[in-house]
């Protein structure tokens, strides 16, 4: 009997606990209630899908400023990145999405198809000129082409550039070519000129390990206008020109203009050895500038634009935005929401935001900001985003290539660097695999075509 009473008590406690648990979660969802008029004023809900203490602080400060200026209050909500897609889907389905949503580029298809977000074409029409050309001609043009309307405003850009040792260049009195003369050949010449092994100086932070093929891909694409495949899905980066390009690319390793160890270097080693003073150039995303700022004296480093093609003068680059801002269709305050987005991408706020993650602001006018202004180290990135030759080629293909990126791409290149196979072998092996996957993709997805490079024209 005693046992039974004990069991019953335990069960009651457990059920009680469960109910209490439900109760608290109910309360929680109750507190994040829909946007509401607060004493006659609107209160917007904003959701961040990549929260960090730094980002939360930025947003809360910005929202306080926004309320001061407009009288509209904004409530900051966040969801950890790992659960973000699921949570937003649940909120979207139940019509409870916050007014302004930080949206990952990959979600926009789902959001527009489900009719969860509203178009902002009028805003774009009216204010488009203030934004860098890449936003208008690449991001928005692409959105319009895919979804019929423009729905989002990007938060910033990740662009590629060549980081270089300004002090070394000045020391040897080297004249770096500009404009159409700044080609890959000119880049290799700079690498060779900066190498001085007696002073323990190498020309470049060469990438031999994971990700080694990515910068090389952009170089190869400069011979084909950005294309990787022909219309039938055949890999086209294996022409004699491309084979020669691979040889030139690796020559700087084989001839000793980069450290021999760099056959094993990944992103971390590249950056460490550049900021540490062993290498003179480094080709990578604008985020590296943050590491340079932290570890190097401002007089020692600078940024050059990506080299242009000798064939058509195009500059192969990337223009990725980590997130963009969208407005929920369920919002009661679409106008105030748009006002908030406009406020967040206003030069001063956007600059502050971009500085957190080494991003490039999306508006042309950055004033005389120490970082992005004309004399700032990031000015080159902004110039790139307004350059008519700026081109965003597709990557390896629309199919999944993670396994190749983690293994085959750099292993094939390493084998050439170590003299175990020819440059032609590298492109044949990689090309065969990519052709197989591309053809399979085209067969599986009827009506799909080869992705075209995005240009500013």
């Amino acid at each position: 009997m005693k046992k039974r009473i004990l069991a019953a008590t335990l069960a009651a406690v457990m059920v009680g606990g469960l109910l209490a648990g439900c109760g608290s979660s109910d309360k929680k969802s109750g507190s994040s209630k829909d946007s509401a008029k607060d004493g006659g004023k609107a209160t917007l809900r904003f959701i961040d899908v990549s929260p960090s203490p730094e980002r939360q602080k930025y947003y809360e400060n910005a929202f306080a400023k926004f309320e001061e200026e407009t009288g509209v209050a904004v409530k900051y909500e966040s969801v950890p990145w790992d659960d973000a897609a699921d949570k937003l889907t649940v909120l979207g389905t139940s019509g409870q999405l916050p007014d302004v949503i930080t949206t990952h580029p990959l979600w926009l298809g789902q959001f527009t198809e489900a009719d969860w977000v509203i178009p902002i074409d009028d805003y774009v029409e009216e204010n488009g000129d203030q934004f860098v050309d890449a936003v208008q001609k690449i991001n928005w043009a692409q959105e319009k082409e895919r979804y019929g309307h423009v729905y989002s405003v990007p938060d910033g850009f990740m662009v590629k550039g060549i980081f270089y040792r300004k002090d070394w260049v000045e020391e040897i009195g080297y004249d770096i070519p500009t404009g159409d003369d700044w080609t890959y050949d000119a880049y290799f010449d700079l690498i060779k000129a900066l190498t001085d092994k007696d002073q323990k100086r190498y020309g470049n932070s060469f990438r031999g390990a994971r990700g080694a093929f990515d910068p090389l891909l952009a170089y190869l694409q400069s011979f084909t206008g950005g294309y990787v495949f022909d219309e039938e899905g055949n890999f086209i980066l294996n022409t004699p020109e491309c084979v020669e390009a691979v040889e030139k690319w690796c020559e700087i390793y084989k001839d000793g203009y980069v450290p021999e160890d760099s056959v094993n270097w990944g992103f971390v080693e590249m950056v460490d050895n550049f900021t540490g003073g062993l290498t003179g150039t480094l080709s990578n995303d604008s985020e590296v500038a943050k590491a340079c700022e932290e570890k190097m004296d401002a007089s020692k480093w600078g940024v050059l634009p990506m080299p242009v093609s000798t064939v058509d003068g195009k500059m192969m680059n990337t223009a990725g935005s980590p997130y963009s801002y969208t407005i929920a269709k369920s919002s009661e305050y679409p106008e105030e929401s748009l006002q908030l987005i406009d406020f967040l991408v206003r030069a001063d706020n956007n600059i502050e935001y971009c500085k957190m993650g080494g991003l490039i602001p999306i508006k042309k006018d950055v004033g005389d900001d120490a970082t992005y202004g004309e004399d700032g180290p990031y000015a080159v990135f902004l110039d790139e985003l307004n350059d008519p030759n700026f081109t965003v080629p597709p990557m390896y293909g629309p199919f999944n290539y993670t396994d190749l990126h983690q293994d085959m791409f750099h292993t094939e290149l390493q084998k050439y660097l170590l003299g175990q196979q020819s440059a032609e072998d590298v492109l044949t092996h990689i090309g065969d695999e990519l052709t197989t996957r591309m053809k399979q993709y085209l067969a599986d997805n009827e009506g799909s075509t080869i992705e075209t490079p995005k240009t500013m024209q």
Partner: protein
Amino acid sequence: MKKKMEPWLFLLPVLVILLLLFGYPLINSIIMAFQNYKLTAPNDIHFNGLDNFAKLMGDPDALMIIKNSFIYVIVSVLGQFLLGMTLAVALKKQFKGRGIYQSIVFLPWAFSGFVVGLIFRWSFNGEYGVVNNLLDKLGLIDKNIAWLGTPGFSLAVVIIAMIWMGIPFFAIMILAALQSIPTDVYEAADVDGCGTVRQFFQITLPYIKPTLITTILLRTIWIFNSLDLVVIITDGGPANTSQTLPAYMYSKAFGSYDFGFAAALGVILMIILGVYAMVFLKATKYDKAGDF
């Protein structure tokens, strides 16, 4: 009947835990080895027969990786055994400061593989490494050697790190066995006019044989399975020339997300080690070791 069941009931909790923590993953990984199981295509998981094994056979680097694995294990175990044995014999006799000396030389065993990996990666760095610096000062090299960027050398660095890390384990085990040999056996041998060398082979070795067999068996399996040093020091590079089977398995599972292929590698590893353990125990007559 009730009496018969009783021991099983007592064993039940342990059996359940073993089954859950070892049995389930083991069986699951064997099943996975026959599946197309890629995390990059989670909607396309299906049985594919022997495809994963065929893929390994068709892998142009497979032979090299298997060869690397054997070189890595054999040289590491041999090096650890010889140096560990030497250390144990040296530490057997009482001398001043033995305690401090012993704790210092046993220290590497207390380090995590990650730390050891980083120490060696930096020591053998082609540009800033202390090894090149020392060799240069000794006049042995006139140009820096890219230890981690040169095929052959990169695997050698991993082996040196593994030997360095594992010597103390051998030394501890052998020293404990040495200290358990009764001294009167040696005294009797002395009286009979038996020399030191003969004493070592006729008395010391037979006495410590069970310990040696267990230690070598355990270390071989551990080293064969270990991937931390390879992953941290060279990540198998350059061009897979320092890749070993378990490190390759790791890179396939957590780099390429091809769990099916990785599981196939795991099954092969398991078979190799199972056969090794049986042959080794049989060949060394483990059952009879220590009988006089």
